């Protein structure tokens, strides 16, 4: 680590030591803090961070926020048409802006700080199960530093009809960049099903969101989990998501990276019960000098689990992208059926992509495939459209839209799909009601 990084780490550790919250959590926080102090902040010499340089974060002096309120109007562009919308401001539950759908049964949606104070039994059971998991320095920083977040518990058999939207926004204070540590814990018990959306949104100024999301699915549970990263272009976003999928349960991740100057997502999904399944959809749409690094880990720990992964990126200008998709098939995870695809469209000669599939297979009766392509638009397709009267720019836009719509078309959480398609259409100067894609 450089001196700068050392100084920055010292400050993070100092800030973490002042974290408020349930007293009984202190030993757990202390352990995370000690791990972080020992490992330090990552640099590009480490394999997992080879293509993502966190120097811009290290160079910035972030302060902890002290205010957690905001005008509703500031979030107008990010609210969604859902029944339940919970707003976090600088990592804290914002009561005035949050609303829950009437008549919700079998689901608990609460401030994480409050749930921890109250020692909710399901939350304690969950924490016990995950306490041995260590997901790296930024997850440790979050564990040592978070003060609030969201706790969602779905009782067995609960079927939510409308999505839950978590709108997580951050803003600078007195012109100083802040660091926020939102934490979200979702436990979906046996046979429950829901759609949960996280939106990360700007509320003014520079900031760094260091978020952690933990998800646990019981037997036969189903969750479609969407993440819309729409941070400010001057912000930084590091997000760790850890998911445990129980027997026969089905997990879907839709992860869209649109904003932030520097983004690192770690999505770790463990298929921990027989015939558990997962579909991971990723879409990165960036330009300027934005950088997005998606690391995914799909762990097949039990036999008979299918998984499908499709990550697509559209990189314009000088944007850079990273995709590292690891599939880990544990001994005994026979009949694993896993398919991974990563495709990147480069809209400029200056955009770069590093895509790395990584298969680790310790069982012998498995089917694992992966494919990765990176390149510009197909000139034959462009010419075909032009030969039918479409302007060169229109042809490029249509093809770019169609490339990305391959991902959005798989999203079943309607407000997310619609929002993404609106954003895509707007980026390409197309009418908002446009349906280029088939179906």
């Amino acid at each position: 680590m450089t001196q700068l990084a050392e100084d920055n780490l010292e400050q993070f550790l100092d800030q973490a030591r002042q974290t408020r919250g349930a007293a009984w959590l202190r030993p757990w926080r202390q352990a995370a803090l000690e791990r972080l102090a020992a490992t330090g902040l990552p640099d590009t010499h480490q394999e997992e961070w080879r293509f993502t340089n966190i120097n811009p974060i290290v160079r910035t002096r972030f302060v902890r926020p002290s205010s957690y309120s905001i005008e509703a109007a500031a979030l107008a562009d990010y609210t969604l048409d859902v029944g339940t919308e919970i707003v976090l401001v600088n990592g804290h539950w914002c009561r005035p802006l949050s609303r829950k759908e009437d008549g919700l049964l079998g689901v608990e949606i609460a401030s994480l700080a409050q749930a921890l104070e109250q020692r909710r039994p399901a939350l304690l059971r969950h924490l016990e199960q995950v306490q041995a998991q260590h997901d790296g320095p930024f997850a440790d920083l979050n564990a040592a530093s978070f003060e609030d977040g969201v706790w969602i518990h779905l009782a067995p058999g609960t079927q939510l009809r409308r999505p839950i939207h978590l709108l997580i926004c951050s803003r600078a204070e007195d012109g100083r960049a802040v660091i926020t540590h939102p934490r979200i814990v979702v436990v979906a018990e046996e046979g429950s099903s829901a759609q949960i959306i996280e939106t990360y949104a700007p509320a003014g100024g520079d900031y760094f969101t260091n978020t952690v999301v933990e998800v646990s699915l019981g037997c036969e549970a189903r969750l479609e989990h969407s993440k819309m990263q729409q941070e400010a272009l001057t912000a930084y976003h590091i997000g760790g998501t850890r998911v445990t999928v129980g027997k026969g349960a089905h997990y879907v991740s839709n992860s869209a990276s649109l904003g932030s100057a520097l983004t690192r997502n770690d999505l770790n999904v463990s298929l921990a019960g027989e015939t558990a399944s997962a579909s991971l959809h990723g879409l990165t749409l960036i330009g300027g000098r934005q950088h997005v690094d998606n690391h995914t880990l799909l762990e097949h720990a039990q036999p008979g689990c299918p998984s499908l992964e499709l990550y697509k990126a559209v990189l314009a200008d000088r944007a850079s992208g990273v995709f590292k998709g690891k599939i880990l098939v544990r001994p005994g995870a026979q009949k694993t059926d896993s398919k991974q695809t990563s495709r990147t469209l480069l809209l400029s000669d200056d955009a770069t992509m590093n895509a790395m599939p990584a298969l680790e297979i310790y069982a012998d009766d498995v089917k694992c495939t992966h494919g990765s392509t990176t390149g510009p638009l197909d000139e034959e397709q462009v010419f075909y459209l032009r030969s039918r009267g479409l302007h060169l720019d229109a042809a490029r836009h249509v093809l770019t839209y169609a490339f990305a719509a391959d991902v959005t078309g798989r999203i079943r959480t309607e407000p997310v799909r619609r929002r993404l398609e609106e954003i895509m259409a707007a980026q390409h100067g197309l009418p908002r009601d446009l349906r280029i894609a088939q179906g």
Partner: protein
Amino acid sequence: MPLLEIENLHARVAGPGGRQILKGLDLVINAGEVHAIMGPNGSGKSTLAQVLAGRETYEVTEGRVRLDGKDLLDMDPEERCREGVFLAFQYPVEIPGVSTSYFLKAALNAVRKHRGLEELDAMDFLRLVKEKMKLLEMDASFMNRAVNEGFSGGEKKRNEVFQLAVLEPRLAILDETDSGLDIDALRIVAGGVNALRSAERSMLVVTHYQRLLNYIVPDFVHVLMDGRIVKSGNKSLALELEAQGYAGVEAAAV
């Protein structure tokens, strides 16, 4: 009145060391005429079709092409389409993720706007499309499929002629539209083309075989060899070619 005038056209594959393919081609097509261009493999038939459509993989090194008196070579591909040039591709391109209906509506409205016509709304567009689909005996589900994706060879060719019917160009260039068609599909496709013949619309039919010309009967037939037209005649020239082969015609032409 000439619609298309090609004068001493030379073209080569773009890029360093690109092969010269067209070596001084002359051709005049009047409004309402159907011309067939025949020739052996590698004679430059498809290159001519692509050059006229504005494909940038070919570079015009000499000569002129005028459409209705305007310099065609000066126009972008989309402008040529809007001015009324339509190329039915030999190998239609698959465009995954873009529905045929969106694609066709965007194309039609681009052309209509250029012609000073109002853009069609969804209802009028559907009405028009249905009528044209009947012409080519196509299924309605076709409009919701991605452009050419997963289409059979015959379906792709039929789609080309369908687009031709919708866009109503002044000059239709059919590049080996018969290749890959069975006899029933050929009859349907040719029927579609024939229905589009009119006193204002000209056609340039590029084909390797005489078979297509039994269905689309040309006013003129030209033999293209080594980048130039070596012989022109009426429809009986096609039969002559069928009997003697290109070698025979070449021997006679020299």
